């Protein structure tokens, strides 16, 4: 029923389609991409948009469309892994803090506050700069900066659901504390978590791209949207606009789609939050 309402709104329906399309092309990249992304076409270096190369080619003659499609794999994979890790870690910490309370709560929440005291992007930069920029480190950097969001969210939800009568009933019936949290409380915290994860996916993609843009994320020759944008930026003055436009457009479209779907989900699940950022 909720899915119906999500698809009824044209804007969010469009956004959902974009997410689906981006995900599918990323999954099927080797089959969808017209060329090998690393294979140079010596006859067409820095070629503009054409039938042969729909999004043009770069300075080595590599097909832009293939590179953008393969870049999507990395961007989505990194964002998804980071979100999954942050969600798991944040939920566990938030659940512990909210359910136990007392010193556990203090310890967890003060640590989370410490992470939040740094601007997220600066912290991500620092982590990748310190650990070196491998894919795993980018995932770790984004996951760490996202953990506080989930911790605070789940802790708040926990404080709400742990006082419910079904929580008391679960205890009366003989559940052990971890069973109460896992089977009774956490499942009832899922809706706001889904909203938050969707919004955070968009933000995570943006962070991967931004890190790569400044050279701290994914390294060439692996194609990545932010790093492609950075490379392409140098050619704008000389007129090769396609190099910066298409990867930049891919970032914008994907992030926008995640944000729109996230906002719509939030409106559906909690109409009171409408318009609140």
């Amino acid at each position, binding site marked *: 029923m909720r899915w119906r309402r999500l698809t009824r709104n044209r804007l969010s329906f469009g956004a959902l389609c974009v997410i689906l399309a981006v995900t599918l092309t990323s999954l099927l990249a080797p089959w969808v991409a017209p060329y090998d992304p690393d294979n140079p076409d010596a006859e067409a270096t820095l070629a503009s948009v054409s039938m042969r190369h729909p999004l043009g080619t770069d300075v080595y003659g590599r097909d832009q469309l293939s590179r953008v499609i393969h870049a999507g794999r990395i961007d989505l994979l990194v964002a998804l892994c980071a979100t999954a890790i942050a969600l798991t870690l944040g939920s566990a910490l938030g659940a512990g803090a909210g359910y136990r309370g007392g010193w556990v709560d203090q310890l967890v929440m003060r640590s989370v506050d410490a992470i939040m005291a740094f601007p997220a992007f600066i912290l991500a930069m620092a982590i990748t700069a310190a650990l070196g920029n491998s894919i795993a480190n980018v995932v770790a950097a984004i996951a760490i900066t996202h953990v506080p969001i989930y911790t605070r969210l789940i802790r708040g939800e926990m404080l709400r659901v742990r006082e419910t*009568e079904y929580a*008391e*009933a679960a205890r009366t019936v*003989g559940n052990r504390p971890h*069973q109460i949290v896992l089977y009774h409380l956490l499942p009832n915290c899922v809706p706001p978590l889904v909203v938050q994860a969707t919004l955070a996916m968009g933000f995570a993609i943006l962070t991967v791209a931004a890190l790569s843009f400044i050279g701290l994320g994914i390294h060439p020759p692996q194609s990545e949207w932010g790093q492609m944008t950075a490379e392409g930026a140098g050619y704008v003055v000389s007129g090769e606009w396609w190099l910066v436009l298409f990867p930049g457009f891919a970032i914008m479209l994907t992030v926008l789609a995640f944000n729109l779907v996230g906002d719509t989900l939030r409106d559906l699940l909690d109409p009171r939050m409408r318009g609140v950022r």
Partner: protein
Amino acid sequence: MPLLAVEGLVKHFPLGGPGEWLDRVRGHAPKAVRAVDGVSFAVEPGETLGLVGESGCGKSTVARLILRLVDPTGGHVRFGDVNLTALAGEPLRRQRRNLQMVFQDPTASLNPRLSVRRAVEEPLRRHSTLRAAERRERAAQVLARVGLERELLDRYPHELSGGQRQRVNIARAIVTEPRFVVLDEPTSSLDVSLRAKAILLLAELRATLGMSYLFISHDLATVKYLAGRVAVMYLGTIVEEASTAELFRQPRHPYTKALLSAVPVPDPTVQRERLVLRGEVPSPIDIPAGCRLRGRCPLAQPVCAEPVTLREVAPRHRVACHLA
């Protein structure tokens, strides 16, 4: 030996904040909400004790204290020869199969994400080694016993009516065949037609399964039907306790009299003496010294400022009133 004995049970909720700190500095005891302030009673095997009183008098806190959903400030709860107050963790958890509760709000007390089957099977999962098929069979049996069809097993709480939800709650409470069940106003959120059915069901289950109930209610008519003995609570203490017949025939405490005289009688021609209390229930933070009813009681005397305890005025009839 009584099945359940509550001895001097006390629960104070501290107010916290700067007031508490100031009180400590000044050297007197910090203020607290004295929700339950020295409650003692016993329930014999197979007996049903009714616990009545206004909203906010501490009835539900007593229920939660017995089940150790909140920890008491003082006093003991003994279940058979086990001191429940001294238990924690796994030993306490193992006692729970014998000690169940039906909650007040049938909707709020069911996890919205568990199907009827999962909700009713869960106690078995936690307390028995039955296999999945056996649990399933047992859940269906218990559901049939509370008058729900097998088809409802795979439904979720929001797909059930209020009466069905309460039956699921009852089924969940009795599936482990507990010896003692606390019923915390099980009928207050049901409409009148369903209320009678629920009460009949509870009476029938008690007869067939041999359980004891602590039946908490503010509905005196249902208490009269279900309970063998009644304890009347006012402001965190028991003011009168007697067998149901005796209490309804000959209430001794002014509070009980006021409570009983407020029950509507279906015959408009009956003239009766009404005992009306003045004012409102005092705050459980500032409980008057001496008799707690003193400020509101039309019969109050100077002696009522003296502390009052429950004393036996007739065999098995206890009253906390200087004048009774």
